[in-house]
């Protein structure tokens, strides 16, 4: 690829006060704390890394089996296993400070108070550029899912986080609701700087020989290319319903996938499950977006965002 031409291509996007050099991020829970991929991926090229969700105290996660492959996707019931706030700050932040990409910390709590506490303790930490509030993980009985499906609870969590941080706050939404735009508007009104969607769709799989569920947790979150059309539809609906930036997530593995989300109205995208089977997906999407703009004689990715043409528009 001609490097001179590359310089004329502008992939920068803005999420509230957070500027990204390109719109490609790695999704929480699919990229560890970035160090896991340091030998396979150029971590300095990404728009942002969103780290594995952090809770106040470490969590051991769910009993195995935790993952099962399904058609064009996978189910997981990891159960929010993570090193906890102190473990994260002591053992993971130093590496993250060394990468030349934005670092977004995904946070999760069992109560509104915990979300606020996490936001406060992560604010002012060198190397953290934004927070992503996980109100949508389906795997923990207490907390997560209640906040993610009740608009007033989602708004309350958002306010608690906003009150205790001056970092940009992204709220990650669950698709397991009747109308995701209701949730998006609720957190927008509560002060969210952006929304990211979708998290996994709740699903299950059964071993017909043993007649037992394939996941020890019985149900889990479906991710991967299988969910992309659902995610795309929800991103399109949400982008029309709110005025804050929307980050598209859900089965994105290729440049074509990323472009669909951007055209549907996403300002940025996150690559999730694809990191597991093709660690360089994010890098190839960054290259692919550049090539797409070059081929069309456009210079800025921003000229693509939200340009979906529908009949009657």
């Amino acid at each position: 690829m001609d490097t001179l031409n590359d310089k004329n291509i502008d992939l920068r996007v803005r999420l509230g006060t957070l500027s990204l050099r390109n719109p490609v991020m790695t999704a929480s829970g699919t990229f560890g704390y970035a160090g896991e991929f340091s030998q396979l991926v150029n971590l300095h090229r990404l728009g942002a890394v969103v780290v594995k969700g952090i809770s106040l105290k470490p969590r051991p996660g769910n009993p195995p089996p935790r993952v099962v492959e399904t058609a064009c996707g996978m189910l997981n019931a990891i159960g929010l296993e993570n090193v906890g706030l102190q473990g994260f700050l002591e053992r993971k932040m130093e590496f993250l400070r060394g990468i030349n990409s934005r670092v977004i910390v995904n946070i999760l709590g069992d109560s509104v108070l915990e979300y606020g506490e996490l936001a406060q303790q992560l604010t002012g930490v060198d190397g953290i550029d934004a927070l992503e509030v996980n109100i949508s993980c389906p795997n923990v009985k207490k907390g997560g899912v209640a906040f993610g499906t009740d608009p007033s609870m989602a708004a309350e969590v958002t306010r608690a986080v906003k009150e205790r941080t001056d970092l940009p706050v992204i709220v990650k939404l669950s698709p397991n609701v009747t109308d995701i735009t209701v949730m998006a508007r609720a957190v927008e009104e509560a002060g969210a700087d952006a929304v990211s969607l979708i998290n996994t769709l709740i699903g299950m799989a059964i071993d017909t020989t043993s007649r037992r569920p394939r996941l020890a947790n019985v149900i889990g979150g479906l991710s991967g290319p299988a969910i992309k059309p659902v995610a795309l539809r929800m991103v399109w609906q949400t982008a029309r319903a709110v005025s804050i930036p929307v980050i598209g997530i859900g089965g994105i593995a290729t440049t074509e996938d990323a472009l669909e989300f951007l055209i549907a109205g996403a300002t940025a995208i996150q690559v999730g499950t694809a990191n597991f089977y093709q660690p360089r997906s994010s890098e190839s999407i960054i290259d692919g977006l550049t090539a797409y703009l070059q081929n069309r004689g456009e210079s800025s990715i921003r000229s693509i965002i939200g340009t979906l043409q529908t009949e009657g528009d």
Partner: protein
Amino acid sequence: MPEFQEKASLLHREVIAADIFRLTLHAPEISGTAHPGQFVMLQINDGRDPLLRRPFSIHQVNAGGNMQILFKVVGRGTAQLAGVLPGHHIDCIGPLGRGFALEQRDRLCLVGGGMGIAPLYFLARRLLQTGRMVEKDFVLLGARNRAELSIFVDEFSELGYTVQTATDDGSMGHHGFVTELLDPILPVMKRVYTCGPFAMMKICADKALAVDVACQVSLETHMACGLGACLGCAVTGADGGYLHVCRQGPVFDAREVAWTR
């Protein structure tokens, strides 16, 4: 430890038995740095079925940059892999995980059941390269029948190991469990290495630990990434916590593992 992603060309495809295959891949970066017990994640095809890579222990490597994997067809992924013909390329990530500790002292016993034989051959070759006299070391191999076993008996014997076998149908060696061969020799062993079905490794571990013989086991589990990111490969540890097979293993000290399932 170094990790690589390379498009390995398939050089050779052997049919060992009806549903058992051995592939020789040219993967110079992975084979040049691999340690016995480590594994590779192979992308079966470029499409999305199956979506995820599959983990395989490294069966052996050579100085020419080649690597072998050995597998039985157990599902869609392995069925497709068995159909890949020489000349095609397979995307490999590796070498991954922690392998076996190389014992210096005399008298080792390698216990392999079924496809668990795969990593033990790499281990046996690497142990030989450390300059040890392997005649005093035992290799115990178990499988369903002679057809699944005879080639490996020859290959381990050629290295100089004392090889004993057990088959489910009695067509080769002891008619019964391979772990039953362990009893007479275990008291003089310094270390047991085992890979195979969980129930077989559990018996090995129980027997070895009962007489204070060190025992390393290589665990197998489903995993999405092999890189420590998905956290899907958790197994229960002896302390009730979770162990991650991909990064903390796949080789563990038998005392680290909870042997109930």
